[in-house]
């Protein structure tokens, strides 16, 4: 294992220490329990947005904290969900009195830990709603798996909901917006190489030089299928069609019902894309591919979208939701409307994403 680290067990803490020193105008870092929060938190009267997950996906989530995006992010160990005490204290720290939205990626551990934290925060008198992100079109059925994973759409939901919170939207409306982004966004990812969890010290799986994994998540885990390496255009086509031609996706998710005061099961349906849709196209570097490569993917994606009648109205290209040093990429398409475009364009100032201010 060759990495720019000191001791494997110190990786997460030392990264947080570095962020705190480098970006004091954007974020502050709280240790034990660990979380990153907006330098100006709590913002009185404004809905706060808290997310989190295992580390190793940088800049998500700590690098997406700041004005116009997340209020706080809770980093777990590498690829391991954070613990409820982190989310609880982060939630209490950033609550400005208007309530807190938890944006949770659909992984078994993240869901369990965030549910516990939300219950604890409500006992402390804080209004908390939770929205799951489950956009990974590589997962075909929800009945016999833990459901679709939360991947690329997470970054887009955090940006868009952060903008709405900044404009003063109330908690219920921000939660509805987050759900809308989730059901209109779909992703698919692939890996050229595995990655090495620092504490494990060796690659999570072996991938021969001439093979690739299609349908991966973001935890260095193997994907749905392994196949011979193909060209960038062929890979783009596989991922893009996997997203664009994905049929309606129906599943049951758990959401907190504030009126009933309990967790309820809600059926959600992702509508398929259709010709004429306006979309945001997001080409994400899994962390280890050279920066010269994602535009090559985007070039082909643009051509495929045109052919399918999808109009790309906004795009995002680069490493935003990564899997350590894994080489590879993911494609996310989000169906846009005027409201989403306006929120996407709103000013944002985080370590990893910044425009308009």
């Amino acid at each position: 294992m060759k990495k720019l680290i000191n001791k494997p067990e110190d990786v997460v803490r030392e990264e947080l220490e570095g962020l705190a020193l480098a970006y004091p105008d954007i974020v502050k870092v709280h240790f034990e329990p660990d979380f990153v929060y907006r330098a100006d938190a709590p913002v009185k009267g404004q809905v706060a947005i808290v997310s989190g997950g295992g580390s190793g996906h940088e800049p998500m989530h700590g690098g997406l904290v700041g004005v116009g995006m997340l209020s706080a992010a809770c980093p777990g160990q590498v690829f391991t969900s954070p613990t409820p005490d982190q989310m609880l204290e982060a939630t209490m720290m950033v609550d400005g009195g208007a309530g807190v939205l938890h944006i949770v990626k659909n992984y078994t551990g993240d869901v369990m830990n965030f549910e516990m934290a939300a219950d604890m925060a409500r006992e402390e008198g804080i209004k908390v709603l939770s929205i799951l992100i489950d956009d990974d079109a590589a997962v075909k059925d929800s009945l016999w798996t833990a459901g679709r994973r939360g991947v690329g759409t997470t970054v887009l939901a955090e940006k868009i909901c952060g903008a709405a919170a900044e404009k003063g939207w109330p908690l219920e409306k921000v939660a509805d917006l987050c759900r809308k982004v989730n059901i209109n966004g779909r992703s698919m990812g692939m890996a050229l190489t595995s990655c090495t969890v620092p504490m494990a010290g060796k690659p999570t799986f072996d991938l021969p030089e001439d093979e690739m994994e299609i349908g991966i998540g973001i935890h260095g885990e193997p994907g749905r299928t392994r196949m011979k390496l193909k060209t960038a255009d062929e890979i783009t086509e596989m991922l893009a069609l996997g997203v664009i031609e994905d049929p309606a996706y129906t599943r049951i998710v758990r959401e907190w019902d504030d009126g009933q005061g309990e967790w309820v099961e809600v059926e959600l349906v992702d509508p398929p894309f259709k010709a004429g849709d306006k979309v945001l196209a997001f080409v994400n570097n899994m962390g280890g591919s050279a920066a010269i490569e994602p535009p090559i993917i985007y070039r082909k994606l643009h051509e495929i979208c045109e052919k399918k009648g999808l109009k790309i109205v906004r795009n995002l290209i680069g490493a935003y939701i990564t899997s350590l040093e894994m080489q590879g990429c993911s494609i996310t398409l989000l169906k846009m409307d005027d409201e989403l475009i306006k929120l996407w364009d709103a000013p944002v100032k985080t370590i990893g994403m910044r425009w308009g201010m």
Partner: protein
Amino acid sequence: MTKSQVLEWLRATAVVIEENRQYLTDLDSPIGDADHGINMDRGFKKIVSKLPGVEEKDIGTVLKTSGMALITSVGGAGGPLYGTFLMDAGKAVAGKDELSDDDLVALLDAGLKGVIRIGKTNLEDKTMVDALHPALEALKKAFSDGKDTVEALHLMTDAAYEGMKATIPMLARKGRASYLGERSIGHQDPGATSSYLLLKTLTETIEADQSA
């Protein structure tokens, strides 16, 4: 089962988990995300650090404190699942300083029900429940057949082992392994393995104490 045996069980489990840290992580690599041994090791070390503060309290408090230590240090799914197992087990024996055979069954039964509640798990989903459930059934049967505590615990451990091995041909339906579909077949579930180790250590702790 005495309180000192419960404390020894938790400490011995921490040692066993540390010894099996690499093994559990290796099992988690092909069908998970290569961290189960690392996470459980961090969690049980946290338990051991909390035990001196609750040694004078009842068994229920010892187990609940241990469960909270796991929940706040492990993360992932393992933290809430094993944390809830110990917390609910502790609630079932609240206030007690010594456990009868019935209490032991109640403890494990409550722990298993807690895991099923928060994991929404069914049998043959390829999870820790596939080791814990047959183990508890074997323990109940052994006691109703009139076996003594150590004999019954051995039958429980054997059933946990069989349950763990039975996860190998299963198709995972929960957790990260479920995303692999057919590719999850042929691998032993890391959670079922750590559950087996937990129960095996319980049996060994009590047997060693009684023969001492």
